[in-house]
């Protein structure tokens, strides 16, 4: 075991025997603060921060720990010490806790509401639920920007394209962006609240709709967390079918993104071709699993639909058709100087920031962060699979495109391997009855990065659940990436991140 400060600090913490597969440790205020400081010093990755009645929980990963772990602190006087004061990636999560539970992060520099726009009619909807007067949504203090010749461009919540809503406040000097500040929360649907109290299958339907483009990944994470809590393992065929769906989702989304990024650089040809390829993958998913996005197909206990031999062959044929045509688009991307002129050196995310925010997916891997849940915290069917994880260093739009290109190629290879070795057998097992409270947690690699689901189950019901999208740690980096770039390059930078609004706003 490595001698890192977080591991040393947690050596004496009391382990609560309720959660699987990671340990959950009870910590006191001073340990909590010290952990926050060490996270700020770069000793570990923050995986999530959330609350429930009486407690605040922090999930982290450190080099010296065998597993990631969850630390729990008792709330005192409706407050807990801020982690964000030491480690900025926690700031927005703390603001969300304040909005949903009414718990104060003591010492936090930014205490503005985040998800609560003053429209719910109540404050602390998951806490004390006190009636609250409605506020004007425009009543929000953006950070001041000082200097001569600056003006502001407000964008959103409704954007020009067919995309999700959110507000971007640009402060610009001529064409150059001096600061971008995001304001999110417009699509807050109260997912954490909806998950509490529903039975496990009902909860799976909600989890599948946290972010529609990652429906397989969320269902996968939800299922893994539920199965960890119930102490069951799914049959081998179901494991592989989950992996197949997850990789198909990755390929489809990456194809869509690569095309859309080119489109934002006015290179419509690549967009048109990628659109056709994406469509072919989705149509094949529809024929194989009965849903184009494979929504509600991964369930606790296994998968909802088996894959016929004919459908498996159909997927292979589709992939065989897509691969050579994708290769042509890739060389087109690589050999078109006018397009490269837009994507190279645009929207650079510094590797130190990617590491500090523990940015997952292509955002992290384009900036030298060599992490992929499938390889580094493997779960079935990725345990034992040899995976090619592309990592680039430049951190620009181009690097984020290349991570996607390489991942499409790797996923197609993996899919063909799995489809060839699919074992026979059942695809779902019944969930065992469980009366005592149990908790499960899972981290799953969605196409845009790792998503986390934690839940407590009691008597067949989900008592409390928490979902953390990869976007929580990517959105803030977009604010950095656009600095010093021209306004016209924002769509390009934004699309190269393709963060989720719904997954973030919850």
């Amino acid at each position, binding site marked *: 075991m490595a001698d890192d400060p977080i591991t040393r600090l947690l050596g004496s913490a009391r382990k609560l025997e309720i959660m699987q597969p990671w340990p959950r440790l009870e910590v006191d205020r001073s340990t909590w603060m010290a952990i926050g400081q060490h996270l700020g010093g770069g000793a570990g990755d923050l995986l999530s921060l959330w609350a429930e009645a009486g407690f605040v929980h922090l999930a982290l990963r450190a080099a010296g720990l065998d597993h990631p772990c969850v630390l729990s602190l008792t709330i005192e006087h409706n407050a807990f010490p801020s982690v964000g004061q030491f480690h900025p990636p926690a700031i927005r999560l703390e603001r969300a806790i304040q909005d949903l539970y009414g718990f104060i992060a003591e010492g936090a520099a930014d205490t503005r509401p985040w*998800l609560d*726009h003053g*429209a*719910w*009619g*109540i404050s602390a*909807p998951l806490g004390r639920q006190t009636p609250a007067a409605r506020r004007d*949504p425009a009543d929000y203090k953006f950070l001041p920007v000082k200097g001569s010749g600056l003006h502001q461009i407000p964008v959103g*919540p*409704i954007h*020009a*394209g*067919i*995309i*999700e*809503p959110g507000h971007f406040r640009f402060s610009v000097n001529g064409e150059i962006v001096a600061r971008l500040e995001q304001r999110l*929360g*417009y*699509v*807050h*649907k*109260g*997912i954490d*609240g*909806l998950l509490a109290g529903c039975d496990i299958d009902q909860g799976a*339907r*909600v989890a599948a*709709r*946290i*972010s*529609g*483009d990652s*429906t397989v990944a969320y269902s996968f994470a939800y299922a893994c967390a539920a199965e960890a809590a119930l102490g069951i393992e799914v049959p081998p065929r179901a494991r592989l079918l989950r992996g197949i769906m997850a990789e198909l989702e990755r390929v489809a989304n990456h194809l*869509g993104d690569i095309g859309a990024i080119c489109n934002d650089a006015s290179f419509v*040809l690549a967009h*048109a*071709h990628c*659109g*056709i390829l*994406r*469509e072919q993958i*989705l149509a094949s998913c*529809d024929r194989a699993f009965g849903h*184009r*996005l494979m*929504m509600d197909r991964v369930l606790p206990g296994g998968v909802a639909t088996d894959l016929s031999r004919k459908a498996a062959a159909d997927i292979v044929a589709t992939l065989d058709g897509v691969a050579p045509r994708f290769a*042509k688009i890739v060389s*087109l991307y690589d*050999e*078109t100087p006018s397009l490269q002129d837009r994507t190279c050196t645009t929207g650079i995310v510094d590797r130190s920031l990617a590491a500090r925010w523990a940015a997952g997916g292509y955002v992290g891997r384009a900036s030298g962060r060599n992490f992929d849940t499938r390889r580094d915290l493997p779960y079935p069917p990725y345990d034992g699979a040899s995976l090619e994880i592309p990592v680039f260093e430049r951190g620009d739009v181009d690097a984020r495109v290349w991570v996607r290109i390489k991942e499409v190629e790797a996923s197609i290879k993996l899919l063909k391997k799995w489809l060839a070795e699919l074992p026979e057998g059942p695809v779902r097992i019944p969930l065992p009855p469980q009366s005592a409270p149990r908790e499960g947690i899972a981290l799953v690699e969605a196409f845009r990065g790792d998503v986390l689901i934690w839940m407590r189950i009691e008597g067949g019901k989900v008592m409390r659940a928490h979902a953390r999208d990869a976007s929580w740690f990517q959105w803030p980096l977009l604010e950095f990436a656009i600095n010093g770039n021209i306004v016209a390059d924002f769509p390009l930078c934004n699309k190269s991140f393709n963060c*989720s*609004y*719904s997954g973030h*706003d919850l």
Partner: protein
Amino acid sequence: MRTLLLQSLFTRPVTVDAPSPEEIALVELGNALKEQAQRLFGRSITIREVDAGSCNACELEIHALSNAVYDIERFGIKFAASPRHADVLLVTGPVTKNMKIALERAYAATPAPKWIVAVGDCACGCGVFSQSYATLGSVQSALPVDLQIRGCPPRPIDLLRGLLALMEQAVDPKPAT
């Protein structure tokens, strides 16, 4: 690039056939639409899409309408960036309370006469997010809805069918046979 363009010249189109008239669900259309549709729409409609709290799955499928396979513009239907250019607001999601004002403003900015199409189960009031402190529960609870296209999410072909129903009304107020 030249090779790719040249090849595309000689490949058959990937575009799907238009849904046949009997497939087009005219019954779903409200009466208000029938009266004025032909005169106002002529043969084209412009749509402003508004996400009022969807999970983004509906947006993905609405997006697909513009790809070469569905090619919605061949029917005279196009998407606009501003509600001021729109005849139709295509609204998805259960209408989160945080999006209510923005949605109402988009509606106010759309020149009359205008139509509201609710897309997806959430927008139609039967989605998983309807019973929450943070949502209104359906588009109908915020704006007068003229057409509902259900599905979670609706397939592009279902969206096409619904929107073509709107167009059919525009060209021929009688139900097609």
